[in-house]
């Protein structure tokens, strides 16, 4: 098994065929990189290039090097040698089979037969509302249940040194818990997100534009402070979400976690983000 120290993204072309602004970017293990940009700007394509270890053969003409070298075809294709786990933007499973059978089959593909499928289902159930049962058919799961199962599957069965995550905030699952489940120690993590809390939790972020990597930003000290405050606001919003989901009325005091500076001082306090 190859040990990952670093991957290099060699820039290709954007949607207009012009060279990408970022011509080369090294990402080391232990780093968490955010990927942000407008819808359609090529964020998912960027992580697809990394998952496939593209060799200038996708529409972006990017090349991905592993430890500075061109990876072997087996490293690209063989699930038993794969070093990349990917949570894609897909929101449903197409396979017509029971959850337990699906997990067992996937574990076998990754050469991890000894993994307990019940443990994975239990992990998924910690991220979603109504529990998934082992003999549920994959195709009847709700969007959120599907997403939760995908996360648990990627975290446990596809457990790999490189983790690619596309819009974990989707489908209303518990995103912080999901992220924690996915990001083990010393991994190389890339997170595509539209969520400011997620984006600011990464030390660096790639800005995508017109299909190309346009800039690499490092989080400023000020952003780190904002990030902390934002986490508080986010916790409040998630709390409100749970209250609403459980059929409760919301009271003004439920907002007490919000930093004062973010509440309008006008007569009826409203939340402005």
């Amino acid at each position, binding site marked *: 098994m190859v040990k990952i120290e670093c991957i290099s993204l060699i820039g290709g072309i954007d949607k207009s065929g012009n060279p990408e602004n970022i011509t080369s970017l090294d990402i080391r293990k232990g780093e968490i990189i955010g990927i942000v940009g407008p819808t359609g700007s090529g964020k998912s394509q960027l992580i*697809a290039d990394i998952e496939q270890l593209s*060799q200038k*053969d996708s529409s972006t003409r990017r090349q991905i090097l592993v430890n500075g070298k061109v990876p072997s075809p087996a490293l690209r294709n063989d699930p038993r040698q794969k070093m990349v786990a990917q949570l*894609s933007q*897909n929101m449903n499973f197409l396979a017509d089979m029971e959850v337990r059978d*699906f997990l067992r089959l996937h574990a076998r593909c990754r050469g991890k037969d000894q993994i307990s499928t019940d443990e994975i289902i239990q992990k998924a159930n910690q991220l979603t509302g109504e529990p998934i049962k082992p003999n549920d058919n994959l195709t009847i799961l709700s969007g959120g249940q599907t997403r939760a199962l995908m996360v648990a599957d990627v975290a446990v069965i596809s457990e790999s040194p490189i983790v690619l995550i596309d819009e974990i905030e989707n489908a209303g699952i518990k995103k912080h818990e999901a992220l924690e489940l996915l990001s083990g120690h010393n991994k190389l993590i890339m997170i595509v997100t539209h969520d400011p809390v997620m984006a600011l939790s990464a030390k660096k972020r790639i800005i995508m534009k017109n299909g190309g990597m346009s800039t690499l930003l490092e989080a400023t000290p000020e952003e780190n402070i904002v990030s902390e405050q934002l986490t508080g606001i986010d916790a409040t919003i998630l709390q409100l979400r749970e209250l609403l989901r459980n059929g409760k009325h919301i009271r003004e005091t439920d907002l007490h976690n919000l930093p004062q500076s973010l509440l309008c001082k006008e007569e009826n306090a409203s939340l402005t983000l």
Partner: protein
Amino acid sequence: MSNQQNINSLPLIIIAGTPGAGKTSILVHTIRILKSANRRPALVKIDCLATDDDIRFAKLGLPVLVGLSRDMCPDHYSIYNLDEMKEFAQKNHADSLIMETAGLCHRCAPYTENCLGVCVIDSTSGPNNPGKAGPFLSCADIVVVTKGDMISQAEREIFRERILEANPRCYIVDVNGLNGQGAAELAQKFQSFKAGSSGEDKLRHNAPFAVCTLCIGEQRVDKKFHRGLLRNMNGCEQYVGE
């Protein structure tokens, strides 16, 4: 050198797969790469009733031929017309022949021993599909998996495993028919392929029996109208007739 020898040294690549699997899409990307490497294949599309693929192929600026098998199995039709297709390729100064077949009949496989047999399979068809696909998958040299962009990584990996169960010695290439990702690897395989050496080319998989009255046009349903080799629901075969 006889013309027949000439014809047999022409590399033949046969692409089979169910309708809509993505055969033409991946071929267009792959052939563009071949063209940029100064290769000049001739393209043939075999289908049953109608096809638009010739229009898509024609945009590549290469010689294109269409054959429609109508009420016959397109695989059978493509087999006994091979020499004609090869002659077409030679007349047009092509350096290889790439044939796309509709592959509607799951009992046949169009590959010959000398050809490069390529099966195209749609990964959204579900993980049980490779087990049901039949000889056009199990005797292929290369299996191209399309539409991986529409399913999760886990489903892609399971699909791959299922293909290997059906055909353990195949080489699998993932190709995205929309953006061409993976086509370079397939083009590489096409380029390095040399025609087989056996003088007389043979089918890899024998065509199924076609020996009952339905095969020769009987339309009535009742069993009493049927003669020939019939197989009962319990799997037993019987010969009915003289």
